[in-house]
């Protein structure tokens, strides 16, 4: 009887593995075929800014969105990772009490689970309060808010996994708390970098946080206070377009996003191997 059950469950498991993998492979396949096809047909959309009547099927490409994404995501990731690493050190009880750190962890957990649209609405409320229109700076801020709890969680986990002996040894040598923390960071660097790259990926792919806050720029972002747009936002806006050429650009943009994600993943693995040199097995 129990062997029958075993067989049945095993069959169900293989079935569900297939059920999981098929749609995911399909999605990658569709994006590569459709988006790659659109790119091969018209490779210059990558480096062209939209011309007049762009959204009506006119000339141009989505170079503005690529640049907009980079201008927003890179500063946001840098700011967020600085904050995140600092917070993660603070949570290690060298500088804080257990109860206070516990409260901050609860808050971070909540922020981690908060849908990104809430950050978008929050920044929008501030913008309305300041009577400003959506701009690049607001986009950077909302992405920072989005990425910060994510990176903090990974950094916190990585630093918590540093063996206790390291901390005890450094203290017994007479190191200050700060010096101990630096050594811990170095030890946890592979995990922290992986966390930062995960945060980067999340920021790169998120449309809901920036769709309200950056405005709808149809040209290259000129300055911090000018409107811009991001790749996921144009995918969202152009996916339902009546014009085939505009829709094709959405496919091309999503292909580009997936390629960027693979690159981030490869970089993450590379860094993980490289910075593991500080970690003694």
């Amino acid at each position, binding site marked *: 009887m*129990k*062997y029958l059950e*075993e067989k049945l*469950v*095993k069959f169900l498991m293989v079935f*569900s*593995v297939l*059920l*999981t993998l098929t749609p*995911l492979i*399909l*999605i990658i396949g*569709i*994006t590569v075929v459709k988006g790659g096809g659109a790119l091969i047909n018209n490779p210059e959309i990558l480096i062209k800014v939209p011309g007049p009547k762009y959204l009506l099927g006119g000339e141009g490409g989505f170079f503005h969105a690529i640049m907009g994404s980079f201008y927003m995501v890179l500063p946001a990731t840098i700011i967020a990772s600085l*904050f995140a690493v*600092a*917070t993660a*050190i*603070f949570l290690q009880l060298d*500088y*804080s009490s257990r109860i206070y750190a516990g*409260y*901050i962890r609860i*808050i*971070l957990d*909540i*922020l981690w*689970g*908060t*849908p990104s*649209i*809430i950050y978008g*609405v*929050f920044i929008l*409320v*501030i913008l309305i309060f300041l009577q400003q229109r959506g701009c690049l700076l607001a986009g950077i801020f909302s992405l920072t808010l989005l990425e910060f709890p994510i990176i903090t969680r990974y950094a916190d986990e990585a630093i918590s996994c540093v063996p206790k002996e390291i901390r005890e040894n450094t203290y017994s040598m007479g190191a*200050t*708390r*700060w*010096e101990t*923390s630096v050594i811990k960071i170095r030890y946890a660097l592979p995990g922290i970098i992986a966390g930062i790259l*995960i945060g980067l990926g999340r920021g790169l*792919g*998120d*449309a*809901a946080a920036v*769709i*309200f806050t950056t405005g709808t720029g149809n040209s290259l972002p000129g300055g911090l206070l000018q409107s811009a747009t991001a790749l*996921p936002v144009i*995918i*969202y806006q152009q*996916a*339902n377009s009546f014009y085939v050429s505009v829709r094709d650009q*959405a496919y091309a943009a*999503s292909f580009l*996003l*997936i390629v960027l*994600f693979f690159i*981030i*993943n490869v970089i993450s693995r590379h860094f993980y191997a490289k910075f593991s040199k500080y970690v003694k097995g």
Partner: protein
Amino acid sequence: MKNRIYSRLLKDHMASHILNLFAFLIVLFFFLILVMLITKSVPVIRKNSIAELIFSSKWDTDAKQFGFFPAIIGTLEVTLLSMLFAIPVSMLTAIYISEYASSSIKTSISAFIDVLSGIPSVVFGLCALLYLVPAVSMVMKKIFSIQTTGMCVITASLTLSVMTLPVIISLIVESLQLVPKELREVSLSLGATKWQSVKKILFRAAGPGIISAILLGFGRAFGETMAVAMIIGSKNKIPVSVFSAGETLPSLIVNSFGEMMSVPLQQSALIFVALILFIIVMVTNSVAKMINIRLSQKWRY
């Protein structure tokens, strides 16, 4: 010599202050979000009472009537349906990866799933819009003879469950891996089959981790905005069946954004939606934490 010690201590001191400041900023930021959302949604609460906002299904910008009941029902329907599909599949897949698969299959599948959990939601939305929507429409017409555009609740829930699968699976695998090997060995040596030891031992030992993974997936599905906004059809009415168009709370915010700027009261209403979302996130988080603590006491090994 003395100088050096002073400078080291000074550095340490300064670091302490700066870190304290950072921690304080987080707390401040959290309460700032809460306060901002509350103050901005006060106008619409003054106009219509909270109960009216939540349980009425009238949405009329001109008459200044805002009822979120359809969107709330839509959110519940979409999230629960997607979880109904995602939970069993992800659990079985995770058990297969963690317990049954050979190590080469294990590393390749879990690396693949790791990559996938990062794919942005708009890509899922785009693919669903391209293929799933027409497919659902066709299948419904041919087999059940139901007329639908395909942009409906069931399409959104299928897409969401595919999106949440990688997240839930990788977390469950992680918590299963943390269970000590001895538990498995003891159970197998007593004559239990693999599945019996999974069912009776591992589910308990990894229980809190599994439940928090599921709740995390739930939160993902619940707060997902863009993919849902692309495929749910955006009709602010209570969905008659799972094959009719609906609206979820986050997609309501995105889809009404155009009118949001012009009418102050509607703006306030949509901010109230964001407040509801935020509060629900807080409640689910606390519940998850409580369940986690309870279960890890009860199922301690």
